[in-house]
């Protein structure tokens, strides 16, 4: 299996070096996962998932926090996915070749993508909570998160569409497809798997986001009754339990396990959606 490893011979030092890096990465991941599983598993139960937290989270569950988290991420994706698709099509198909405005947009996006999330939190607080008057709310948190993931999402989507070979583009145009139909019928379906990978990264990032939400969606761990209510995100809950609440470690581990489980679930779901999508679109080959 591993080239360079033959029975009765010492492996080449280069082989050892090359393989030690991915092994180390896997080992760190396994260690983290193992640690969380070990400490969090016995805390995990159905009631933990649906109950309201008691004693500042030391007891009870994370029901309202899960609801708030999912609402925040849903708002984030509902807003950011269509915008990023539109912007990516604009960048990759209409402002393609060294267009000055295209370049300015790309540079701005790359710089935005590198801005620390806490800055997005403060700006989100100023814009959504105060200027638009949403206050500390799930809405403000979701919109702030959308702003935060947009730069990365646009760039990965643009890359995905841009990576579709020119031959398909010209082939469609030569068959009398209009530009928009070429994008809709050929480019986006072919790029869909890569676009979804980008979306997956955005989902992961928004589930795990803490700093941007501290100032926007708030800290309240009650069950939200509307999008205008504040809500505590799972990652903030973990931060709070681990850092501020003495005796909250066990609940923190339990919450972390739920967070990781959610990410695994969403990853799997998106893979399934991609597969079904490709099948219904008749897409068969990997690009």
């Amino acid at each position: 299996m591993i080239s360079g490893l033959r029975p009765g011979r010492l492996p080449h030092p280069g082989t050892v070096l090359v393989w030690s890096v991915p092994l180390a990465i896997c080992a760190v991941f396994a260690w983290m996962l193992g640690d969380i599983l070990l400490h969090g598993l016995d805390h995990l139960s159905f009631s933990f998932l649906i109950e309201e937290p008691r004693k500042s989270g030391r007891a009870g569950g994370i029901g309202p926090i899960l609801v708030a988290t999912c609402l925040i991420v849903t708002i984030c994706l509902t807003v950011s996915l269509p915008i990023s698709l539109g912007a990516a099509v604009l960048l990759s198909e209409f402002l393609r070749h060294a267009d000055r405005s295209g370049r300015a947009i790309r540079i701005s996006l790359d710089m935005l993508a590198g801005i620390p999330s806490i800055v997005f939190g403060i700006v989100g607080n100023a814009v959504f909570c105060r200027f638009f008057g949403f206050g500390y709310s799930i809405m403000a948190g979701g919109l702030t998160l959308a702003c935060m993931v947009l730069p990365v999402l646009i760039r990965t989507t643009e890359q995905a569409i841009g990576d579709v070979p020119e031959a398909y583009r010209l082939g469609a145009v030569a068959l009398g497809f209009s530009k928009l139909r070429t994008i809709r019928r050929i480019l986006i379906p072919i790029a869909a798997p890569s676009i979804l990978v980008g979306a997956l990264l955005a989902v992961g990032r928004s589930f795990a986001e803490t700093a941007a939400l501290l100032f926007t969606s708030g800290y309240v761990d009650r069950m939200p009754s509307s999008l205008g209510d504040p809500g505590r995100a799972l990652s903030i809950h973990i931060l709070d339990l681990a850092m501020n609440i003495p005796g909250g470690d066990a609940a923190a581990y339990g919450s972390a396990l739920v967070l990781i489980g959610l990410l695994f679930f969403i990853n799997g779901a998106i893979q399934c959606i991609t597969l079904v999508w490709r099948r219904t679109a008749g897409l068969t080959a990997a690009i």
Partner: protein
Amino acid sequence: MHNLGVASDRRVDSGDLGNPAPSDRAAPARRQNDALWQIDDLSIRYGRKVALAGVSIEIERGDITAIIGPSGCGKSSFLYCLNRLSSDVQGCCVSGKVLLNSHDIFSPDTDQIALRKRIGFIFQKPNPFPLSIRRNLELPLREHGERDRTRIEGMIEATLRAVGLWREVKDRLNAPALQLSGGQQQRLCIARALVLEPEALIMDEPCSALDPMATSVIEELIRSFKDTLSVVVVTHNLRQAKRIGDRVAFFWCEGNQGKLLEVGACDQIFNAPKHELTRLYVMGGIA
């Protein structure tokens, strides 16, 4: 039909390419109804670089016109002007007149989509979409407004039969097109163009990426189009041009810009070329 070729020979003479004599172009009365394309003083630039200059040629309806010449003399660029695909190539600038059935296709009122439906284009490298075989043929039909399922199925079968692919793929129409061999893929691309019932096919070195067996199948196919379809085919293979061409156009590169040196009936170009360079080229003396 063959006498028609002679009439155009007098027009193309390297001496007057830059400044074609008006009297020469005034009255091609004898074959007015037979020319599908009438191209007059066509020049193509990419930015500042002139790819092709002062080309005037008439392409007969129902003929197979083979275009030969060394690489980089603007043959492909010329093809791109025949169905205005050049408008979709970044930085490509066209001047001169391209009349298709006496209509200037570069005039602003040209319906590009209808134009490309009538003029099919086959690329050098087979470029079936990464979809199923069926979907490759269905998509252009649907794009041009065909909704009736039974009609679509019928047309798919008819075109696959026309390119000799039906027997090979009839049991796996839903299989990925990219699983086909190179020659089969190219025939699928030809079928994809034929399914729209075009009046002409433009082929840019359709066999250069194929093995000799697949090449002879495609050549046979091109010959079978004679009289029902006009074909313009660029080829680097002189023997192929001799085998399939009714008329042959010889493009040459002079001072880094391409031009049409000579055009005539296939026999005349290969046996009694008027131009010394043509004679040397078809003898294999220069490339």
